[in-house]
């Protein structure tokens, strides 16, 4: 059984990482084309650091992704808690409204948000882009947190109150830890969606604020420049290293705790 689990896990991860490996390999390709391998080179990495446009896009992409995910997680979690407690009719209405940005094709969301921003005379730029991202992120947070709330044992909260805890204290110590996996999942999903969005971002930004997706998709007619491959490789390695470092620290913490206990 264990072997089967291991094999399956490896298979799925191989499936997930195969394209990433291809991307990394081709970032060292001396040719601009995916169709031929012309030799090993680091020139795309060098070009990357001189490309003002790509680096600016990278900055905006990360900034928007982090900020919008955090805000969306905050609003979404609170909303999910409130929705859970609503009466049936109200709940149905609010849930359906929540789904709308998810249901709509990106182009519809993108254009309608753009029209809205123009109507209220909000100049298209960083702030409008941020608002758009938060808007389409919130439903995913709600969808992640709500199942966890449903899973909660209703009586735990009441028990905590009976034992003398204030509502906020009870919330912090009882509910929050239980729904935390949902919150984190929601944050991760929101972050992921934000990083990759093109259509909605394209129509809701302006004034030189571009994210990576826009820069990449705009190259679609010409063919994607290998500097993008180089950038993706660097990003991937950075995240991987970060992950390993954080993981090591946490397991050291856990080991320390176990020794103390």
């Amino acid at each position, binding site marked *: 059984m264990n072997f089967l689990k291991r094999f399956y896990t490896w298979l799925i991860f191989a499936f997930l990482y195969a394209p990433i490996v291809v*991307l990394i390999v081709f970032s060292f390709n001396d040719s601009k084309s995916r169709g031929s391998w012309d030799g090993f080179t680091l020139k795309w990495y060098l070009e990357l650091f001189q490309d003002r446009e790509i680096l600016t896009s990278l900055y905006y992409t990360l900034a928007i992704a982090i900020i919008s995910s955090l805000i969306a997680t905050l609003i979404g979690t609170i909303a999910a*808690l409130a929705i859970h407690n*609503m009466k049936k009719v109200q709940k149905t209405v609010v849930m359906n409204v929540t789904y709308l940005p998810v249901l709509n094709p990106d182009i519809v969301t993108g254009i309608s948000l753009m029209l809205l921003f123009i109507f209220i005379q909000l100049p298209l730029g960083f702030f409008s882009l941020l*608002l758009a991202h938060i808007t389409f992120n919130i439903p995913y947070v709600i969808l992640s947190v709500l199942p966890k709330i449903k899973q909660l044992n209703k009586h735990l909260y009441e028990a905590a109150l009976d034992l003398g805890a204030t509502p906020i204290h009870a919330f912090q110590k009882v509910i929050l830890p239980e729904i935390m996996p949902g919150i984190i999942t929601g944050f991760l999903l929101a972050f992921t969606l934000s*990083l990759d969005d093109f259509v909605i971002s394209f129509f809701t930004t302006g004034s030189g604020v571009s994210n990576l997706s826009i820069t990449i998709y705009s190259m679609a007619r010409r063919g*994607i420049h290998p500097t993008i491959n180089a950038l993706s490789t660097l990003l991937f390695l950075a995240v991987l290293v970060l992950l390993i470092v954080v993981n090591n620290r946490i*397991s050291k913490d856990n080991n320390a705790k176990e020794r103390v206990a």
Partner: protein
Amino acid sequence: MRMKWVAYPYLVWAVLFTVVPLFLILFYSVLQQTDNGWRFTWEFFQKCTQPIYLKVLWRSVYLAFLSTLVCLLLGYPMAMILSNMQLSKKNFFVLLFVIPMWMNFLLRTYAWMTLLERKGLINTVLGYLHLPSLNILYTDQAVILGMVYNFLPFMVLPIYAVLDKMDKSLIEAANDLGANNFTVFRKIIFPLSIPGVLSGITMVFMPAVTTFVISRLLGGGQYTLIGNLIEQQFLVTGDWNFGSALSIIMMILILLSMSVMSRYEKENEGGMLW
């Protein structure tokens, strides 16, 4: 837990940024600008019912359905494996699972083309091993592979989140009462995980119906999907009326199919749809 007032910030946001744009679409789908002002008409909805457009719609739904199914079949076991891991490894692997999604979607799809091409990497490797070559690029299978690849984490993560904090004592109790692993799964684990499963299905099926980049690149643009069609209306033909009508039809369709599925939710708190 009387925290309803807390929902107000979200509700305000939702009304402003979700409902208002929706009204724009509704507006365009039935009102046509003529020289004498606006006139109400059903003709755009009627246009949607022409056989050729129904064919496009059906195709999109069919592909999305298959992709969601494959995602569920592949994703559920993965979620189970992840939730059963030791604490130290668990978070690490979950993040490892999500990280590929942080690479740009277009780039990853191009990478799949490099892998799946006739003279692509997979076939090169298969050639070395003297195995028959795999020619699935530009077929439905390639499109489904692409969609599954893109949406798998959206299926796995909600299911994982639910399975993770499942009350293990229930499983132990069932085992004590003599149930084998399969029965435990069927009677306890799966039913309790349904909220997560439904979330996952929602987050996969809906975008899968409207996506079209994958079918354009991996499917060779062989057919138009509803996502293409809507985009074409808004961008190329400038027929926002027809595009809006199509969007509304698609929304209604998805809402209907989701409501069918939510019947399976035992708790039936009406928290999903309708």
